[in-house]
């Protein structure tokens, strides 16, 4: 989707907010949101691409006005509801008025870690032919999928060169909506800064973007 999350090349966000001696979490609740995300992910009801897609579907005004871990909080709530793990009314009922009984035993830490380890790589060990090889010129297709996608707007229609073939990986556009892994080759594609940003860009600088076969065509 051509959403607010696709930020590469935008202006107007001000200077980089660099902070000295930054803590890992700025408040305890951030750590709880982080850990909830990990622990809930281990139930296997969703995957990383579905999680990103849920985040991208937050209202753009909310996305921009929320902190990183606030966005994660809203995303987690939405995924829990989407996957029937909690209901919207349970989320909205004050804790002291809630009548909830345990439906299952929570996963212990070691089980969470085992399950996390199993899904840690998106690499697929299948022998699938590659459409391109290192050195090939390619064009990022001018496509505008309305669902989840990882082809940023700023490369669409632009011509680059395959820098390397990373191997076969799960395709996020289908994986995000539980429509299959659709495994295919993933490449790092090298663009000149001038191809992407025009004649005012530095003549030597390069931008590398990871893209799957389905995002690319022969120019």
């Amino acid at each position, binding site marked *: 989707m051509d959403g607010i999350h696709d930020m590469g090349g935008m202006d107007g966000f001000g200077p980089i907010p660099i902070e000295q001696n930054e803590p890992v979490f700025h408040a305890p609740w951030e750590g709880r949101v982080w850990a909830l995300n990990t622990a809930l992910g281990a139930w296997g009801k969703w995957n990383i691409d579905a999680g990103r897609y849920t985040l991208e579907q937050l209202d753009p005004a909310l996305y921009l006005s929320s902190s990183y871990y606030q966005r994660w909080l809203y995303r987690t709530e939405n995924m829990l509801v989407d996957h029937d793990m909690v209901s919207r009314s349970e989320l909205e009922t004050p804790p002291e008025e*809630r009548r909830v009984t345990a439906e299952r035993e929570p996963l212990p830490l070691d089980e969470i870690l085992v399950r996390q380890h199993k899904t840690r790589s998106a690499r697929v060990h299948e022998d699938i032919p590659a459409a391109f090889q290192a050195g090939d010129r390619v064009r990022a297709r001018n496509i505008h999928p309305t669902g989840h996608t990882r082809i940023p707007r700023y490369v669409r229609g632009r011509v680059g060169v395959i820098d390397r073939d990373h191997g076969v990986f799960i395709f996020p556009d289908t994986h995000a909506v539980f429509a299959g892994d659709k495994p295919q080759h993933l490449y790092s594609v090298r663009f000149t800064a001038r191809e992407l940003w025009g004649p005012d860009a530095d003549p030597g600088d390069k931008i590398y973007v990871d893209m799957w076969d389905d995002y690319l065509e022969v120019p």
Partner: protein
Amino acid sequence: MPDHALHSHLSDTELRVRALESLLADKGLVDPTALDAIVDTYENKVGPRNGARVVARAWVDEDFRQWLLRDGTAAIDSLGYVSTQGADIVVLENTATVHNMTVCTLCSCYPWAVLGLPPAWYKSFAYRARAVKDPRGVLAEFGQVIPAELEVRVWDSTAEVRYMVLPQQPPGTEALSEDALADLVTRNAMIGTERLGQDRGRG
């Protein structure tokens, strides 16, 4: 203490997180002690020190350096820094003529296994938006002056491959031990917003 007094210092977000955690615990969906352990791991055990050890090893061991650049995932796994997410790691070598810098314009992908959780600036809209279009301007905000003849390569992590920069070893440090070398390696140098041995920059 009345409830409103107990909660008067808590933000709406904090209350919302507490309510969610208690709901999930009541339903048997999470074990709060498991959450404690997950927080502790990322606050205290996983962090840029891991990546600094990888870099220091590469500086003292040429075979390891070549392995790291050829197959970052296996070389890093061999040191015991196994990722929970985005397990496939590609290491990018800075040289006298090339400076590498990493970003995730679409979200905030980051090599957790070697660097821990990303700093807020890495997740900021400003960095995500500008790193690919004006990398030299961004680097200048970090106090880094990149000579015109140096090629800047920006790597946008749009997939499940994670990137880590292998900084150049600062001159005059050849006699240092591996541990002492690891102390020289900053998180920002491994993201690519600092060149070691230059002005240390900020953040």
